[in-house]
């Protein structure tokens, strides 16, 4: 599989690198850019990033395996992240997670990210999203939703055209 970074993205990445006196510092920002563009971070992307920053692939790979937000495989087009942690749990986030899984035909008890067969939706639990005052909270891709009732959840799913 060949891995080509579009010229515009590479220009953005080159600019990011100038923000730091040491190139390696840009690792996380470059990985964010790549994941935003490709949806996940492949082995080729790891190697490309390492070469770009003058590092060994292991220096990048160890980041992809550590930081929870980086994905080593493609996820759904719409990624639903439900907050699992205490305040949201007290506010019904586990029922919300179950509701999403039920609605989308996913296993609520399986560990980690669950993706629908058509690749349209992924559902996962994440740790505290810092929205505890309006529990339960969730994200759908970059959008943040507060006080999500089950009917609001259905609306969110419907709006993902």
């Amino acid at each position, binding site marked *: 599989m060949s891995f080509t970074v579009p010229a515009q993205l590479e220009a953005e990445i080159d600019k990011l690198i100038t*923000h730091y006196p040491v190139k390696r510092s*840009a690792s996380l920002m470059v990985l964010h850019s790549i994941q935003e563009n490709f949806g996940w971070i492949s082995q080729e992307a790891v190697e490309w990033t390492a070469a770009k920053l003058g590092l060994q692939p292991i220096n990048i790979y160890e980041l992809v395996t550590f930081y929870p937000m980086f994905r080593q495989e493609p996820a759904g087009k719409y990624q639903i992240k439900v907050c699992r942690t*205490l305040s949201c749990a007290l506010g019904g986030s586990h029922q919300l997670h179950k509701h999403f899984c039920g609605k989308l035909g996913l296993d609520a008890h399986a560990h980690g990210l669950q993706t629908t067969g058509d690749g349209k939706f992924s559902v996962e639990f994440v*740790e505290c999203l810092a929205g*505890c*005052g309006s529990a339960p909270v969730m994200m759908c891709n970059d959008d943040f939703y507060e006080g999500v009732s089950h009917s609001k959840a259905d609306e969110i799913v419907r709006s993902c055209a």
Partner: protein
Amino acid sequence: MPSECRLILKHADEPGYTPDIECYARHGGYEVLKKALTLPPKNLSDGKTINPPEQIRDDVKLSGLRGRGGAGFSCGLKWSFVDRKSGKPIYLICNADESEPGTFKDRQIIHKDPHQLLEGMIISCFANDVHLAYIYIRGEFPEGARILNRALQEARAKHFLGKNILDSGFDLEIHVHRGAGAYICGEETGLIESLEGKRPYPRIKPPYFPAILGLYMCPTIVNNVETLCAVKHIVAMGASEYARLGTPNNTGTRIVSLSGHVKRPGYYEIEVGRVTIGELINDPAFGGGLRDGRTLKAVIPGGSSAKVFKAGEKFRLKRKVEGKDVEQEVGMLDLPYDFDSLIAAGSMSGSSAIIVMDDSTDIVEALANIAEFYAHESCGQCTPCREGSLWMSKALHRLTHGEGRKSDADYLVKIADNIPGGRTICAFGEACSWPVQSFVAKFREEFVVKGAADEERRAKENKTAEPIAKAELAVSSRH
């Protein structure tokens, strides 16, 4: 009547207040920066002069400002530790990794008033001779990062950033750096490692005190979002005026994140120590009380790592009454919400996040939830924390899934007691142990009863299962 005292969030929720620079300017934005950059040198009676940056540093020390991120350490002292003679550049990092469960105050500032943070940061950088600074924002705030980047662009265009800011001769650039979902990045040395493009493994202290060996082994200041905003107000009001807010040794205002089983969860800015926990939970100006028909069971007073308080708990605290130190009994709800009172009561105000639990809460489930968080977030560097946090989570998982044991309460405490206290590189060891130690100590009965019930049930199941198993064994041994 207790009420909010909005200093940092003064404008944030006003109708029509927007996060752009024009709106900020209309509300007096960047005037304090102008004041800071044009402060005249102060001449002392002994002939010495104090330059403007040093004056600001003195003011921050005098103001009594304590870090709003979690540890509550004096900001002025932190700044005074910075090695200014090393010849190396000094860096400043704004810790916007807000990730202590229960906390959502920095999100409000970033989203609603980003320029206030920038102004506070620029002043702090000027005061500390910093020319390159970063905002380390958690990965889960993509919109926050966009808002900050927009704000930075606007500030550059108005010449509040860049070379020779407002013709003062001071240069500064600030960049946004995004995390990627790891709680440990909130620990300042872990954050520095992460900003260097590595796994966020906290560094051992000594020797790696950020003030001396921080980012790129240079002197580095790491301050919380709210702390940096407070600096702006200290310079605006003057140190003594700022210190008049709050209570002695607990000065200024603080944004409290209130969540859980209250009628009006939300963020409330208060004068530190001028409002009690009970008022925060029950007063109509704040939490508005518990949901109807419910009674209070427990309160986590400072983010999920703070030791839990049980409803009805009483503490013996030293207090000043008419100038004299006397010991007084204080009920949990009557504790003033400040740094020192909560420490005296055996917990902490941490990141000023209060999580309220009413009598509908299964306390074992609640602790299992917290323990799972810490098991997930331990960076894995130190064995006691990596293994201990996971063992505790596993024991609590079985307790909440019908597989508990009567002895689990003791087992949990035994593990928790062996993680903190200098056995780990960073304070995560403490953070994951304190909830377990305090929940089990204060609600022991619930853990024991649950474990005992599971044991009894399994014993019954084994009895009925035994003859079947024997018969099966007999059949299988015949083949």
